[in-house]
Every structure is written in C-alpha cells, then in structure tokens.
C-alpha cells in the first residue's frame, strides 16, 4: 500500500509538471501577441502624439528628411489598391467557390482545388516578380504610362486573395443544408435559380467573412505590392497613377531610416496593425455568429 502511494505521488507530480509545460507552450501565442503589440506601440505611438495625430493621419506630405510625416497618401494608396483587389477578386473568388461547391464534376474539381492550394502557397516575392515582369509592362503598353500603378497592384492583390475567398466561401456554401436545394428544386426551380436565390444567400455570413479576411490580407501585403506600385508618396490621381501603401512605406524606408524617421515608420506600423486587427476581429465575429445559427 505504501509503495503504491509513493509511486502514485511521483506519477501525479510528473503529470502535473507536464501539464504546466504544455500550458506554457499554449501561452506562447498570446505572449507573442502581447509582446508584438507592446513593442510596436512603444516605438510608434510617442511620435504620433508628438507630431500630432491629425497631422500624421491627414497630412499629405511625407518627407522624412524635412521632418514631415503625413501618411495620408499611403492611406489612400492602401484603400485604393485594396478596393481594386476586392472588386476584381471577390466576384471571381465567389464564382469559383460556387463552381467547386455546386457545379464542378469530380474530374475538374480535382484540378481546380489543388490549383487554389498552390496559389495560396506561392511566396509574395514571386507574385511581385510576375507583376513586375508581366503586368507592369502590359499596362505600360496598353495605357502608355509608366506601368507601375494602382491597377497593377490591384490585379496582383486580387490574385493573392483568391485562395482566401474561395476556400472560406466554398466551405460556407457547402455548409448550407441540402434540404434547401431539394426544396427549391421540388418547387420547379432550375439549379441556377436554387443557387442564386437560396443557397448563396444562405451562405452570406461565411462569404462576408471571407471578404473581410481577404481585405485584411490585401492590406497587409508588402513585397508584391512594393514591386508593382511605383512607390511615389503622393496621393494617386487615378488607378493608373503610381502610389504607395502603408506596408510599402515601411518596407522601402526601414532599410535606411534612422532615429525619428524610424519611429515614424513604426507609427505607420501602428496604424496598419490597428486596421488589420479590427478587420480580423470583425471577420471572426461574423464567422462565429454564422456557426451559432446552425
């Protein structure tokens, strides 16, 4: 009896220790998030206040060598390229999701689905290279301008967010109860009518979540966008003008910025970080609410 107790005690301690170690591992993510938030804010927030938040966000001149840190042109650049990416990417993405979920036969689905997975795995520099060597020259030829433009950025970003939109929308569409489709067909509808009148509307939440996540990805993209956007820190006049995004601002100048200039870049990071965190939280809320309705 004594032996057992001793053995039991040791084992219990052993198990408890392991549980603690595992718990600490689980904390790394949140620990990392806290660290990241702290340091980015620590580096970037003071200068935002020192310079003036309004001047920082709405100032139209970005000239660090003259101590001018207005990031409004970059905010516009980010907004326009993201909007463009959504306009191009969402219809095709949702269309592809409908294709995979409702229309494709097995043979084709076997080709398209892996294609999407591969697109998701391609590194951003490769997208940037393709944009630089194909899209930019093409726009240059057709529109007779520099080629580096919001249009180029939007096209590349649209391709990059396709996998996000397709995967999540496809899941959402597949999750719609098949009884809805049966009910619709039973009333004499065509397959297409069932899709656009019942199935897709029922998958609205999931599709919206996919769009919000796509938006978040587009806003956070750096390398590919730098390579095709032209990176002029002025407010773009049209979709054919070059521009710079918040991410591009950081990516290009971080390599040679010092002291205050660097802090201003961190401040740009703060704005970016807040934007993206809000979008991610919204997407999760939509996603979870969709799950609850089932």
């Amino acid at each position, binding site marked *: 009896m004594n032996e057992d107790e001793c053995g039991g005690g040791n084992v219990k301690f052993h198990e408890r220790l392991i549980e603690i170690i595992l718990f600490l591992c689980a904390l790394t993510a949140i620990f*990392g998030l806290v660290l990241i938030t702290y340091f980015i804010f620590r580096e970037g927030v003071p200068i935002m206040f020192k310079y003036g938040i309004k001047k920082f966000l709405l100032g139209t001149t970005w000239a660090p060598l003259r101590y001018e840190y207005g990031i409004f042109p970059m905010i516009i650049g980010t907004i326009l390229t993201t909007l463009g990416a959504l306009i191009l990417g969402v219809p095709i993405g949702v*269309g592809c999701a409908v294709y995979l979920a409702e229309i494709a036969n097995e043979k084709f689905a076997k080709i398209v689905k892996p294609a999407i997975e591969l697109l998701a795995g391609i*590194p951003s520099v*490769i997208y940037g290279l393709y944009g630089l060597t194909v899209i930019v020259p093409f726009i240059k030829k057709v529109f007779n301008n520099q080629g580096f433009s919001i249009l180029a950025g939007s096209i590349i970003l649209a391709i990059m967010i396709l996998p996000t939109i397709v995967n999540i929308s496809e899941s959402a569409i597949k999750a719609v109860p098949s009884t809805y489709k049966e009910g619709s067909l039973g009333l004499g509808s065509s397959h*297409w009518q069932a899709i656009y009148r019942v199935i897709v509307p029922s998958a609205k939440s999931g599709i919206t979540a996919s769009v919000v996540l796509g938006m978040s990805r587009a806003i956070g993209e750096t390398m590919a966008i730098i390579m095709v956007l032209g990176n002029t820190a002025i407010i773009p006049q049209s979709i054919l003008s070059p521009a710079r995004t918040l991410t591009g601002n950081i990516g290009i100048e*971080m390599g040679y910025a010092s002291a205050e200039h660097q802090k201003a870049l961190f401040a740009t990071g703060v704005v970016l970080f807040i934007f993206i965190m809000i979008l991610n939280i919204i997407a999760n809320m939509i996603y979870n609410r969709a799950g609850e309705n089932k």
Partner: protein
Amino acid sequence: MKDDMEHKNSIASTKRAEKFAFGIIKFCGIITIIILVAIIGKILINGIPHLSWDFLTKEPENMGREGGIFSVIITTIYLTLFSIIIAGPIGVCAAIFLTEYAKEGIILKTIRFGTESLAGVPSIIFGLFGYVFFVVALNLKYSIVSGGLTLTLMIIPTIIRTSEEAIKAVPVSYREGSLALGATKWQTIYKVVIPAAMPGIMTGIILGIGRVIGETAAVIFTAGSSLGLPESIWRPGRTMAVHLYILASEGLSQGNTYATATVLIITVLIINLIANKLMKKLSKA
C-alpha cells in the same frame, strides 16, 4: 393558348439564363488554373535555361549579378531548420494542451483569441517587431537567431491549428483503450494519440516550412541581407526570397533573377505537394 406560350417561353428563358450563368461560373473556376499556369510558366520558362549545377553550388559574385546562390541556399536551410526546430515542438505541445487538457473558460478563450490574432498579423509587422525586439532590445543583432525567432512566432499559429485538428481527429476509443490498460494521461498522449495524429501534425509542419522559405518582409529586417555564408547562427545571412527581392527590384541580372525564382518556386511546390499527399493519406486513414 397564350398562357401556354408564355409558359413555354418562361421555361426557355430560365434555361437560357442558367446556361449563361453556368458559363460564367465555369470560367471563374478555370481562370484560377490559367493564372497558376501563367505565373509558374513564366518563371520556369525564363529561369530553367539559366539553371545549372554551377548555379546551385557557386557563391554569388558581384552583388549577385554573376555567380550562383550557394550561400543563399544554405542560409535558407539554416533559417528554416532553426525556426522549425523551435516552433514545431512548442506548437504541437500547445495543441496538445488545447485539445487534451484545457477546460472551457476565460483562459481558453484568451489563448484561442491570441492564436487566431497572431495568425492574422502581416509579415511586415513581424519584421518590425523582430527588429526592435530581437535585433535591438535583446541585442541579437542581424542574425539567423533573430530571424529564426521571429519566424518561429510567425508559424506557431499554423502549427497549432493543424496539430489541433489532427489530434481532435484521433478516435476517443484509442484513448479509452490506453487508459483502460492503466496508462497515465500523458503516456496515452505520447504513445497513442500523437503517433496517430502524426500525418496531420507533419502536414502542419511542412506547411510551416513552406511559409518560412517564402517569407521576405519578416526576414529582411531580422536576419539581414548580407551575402556570404554565415559563420554561425549569430551572424546575418541572406535567404532565397530576400535575394530574389533584391535582384528583382534592383534589376541586377535578369537571368539570375529568374533562376533564383525558379529554385524558390520549385522548392515551394515540392513542399506543398508533399503536404498535400500527407493530407490525402490522413483523410484516407
């Protein structure tokens, strides 16, 4: 009679609308394949002619205008190994905690929130963080260590997510069988559950590797961009993705640019294929 005609026309137009709509939808499906082929094709067509055994085994010369990418490849391998060796075990352990030990409550919710949020942080922010924390604050300077630790943080959410799914998929009956034989909880996990979940866990790790290899923004500000073989992990180095970026944006050598891109993309494709095969094996089991 008129009703009849109207009725027939209505059916005809419904069918026409369906045909048209399906045509557009099919196009959306096919265009993804076209895009994939276009991108990979362009890279391979322009890159393979410049590939050679020399390219893979010689050092870059003249800032990369000539020569090969040997040290670049080695640096990439160092960095990848470093981050995976740390992120792998931590991620799997975290996943084990979340599936086997954690109870519903505010702690669990916070951990999940943290993991999901971390997964959504863009790479440039990781780059900024890695710079100010590892390179400067911890004084690790531009180094493989700085880069590796930053990338570890970046891929941990992915590994946690896929490992969690894999562990959840292990049938309860396996656990019960082990416990009924007198094994402890940890023994059950270690000897039965994890081995059973291995394919899924490996898939997550391989996907993590793929991500690390393609990463640029987070690496350039932490591991630096100096050419040459790093003498130790405390020295900076340039990875394939960073090298490609520099070559492309500074227009240093078209041939080498495409060749580097080819090596990068072939590596990533192979990794993704292996991950896919593993996932298929997993769903069959």
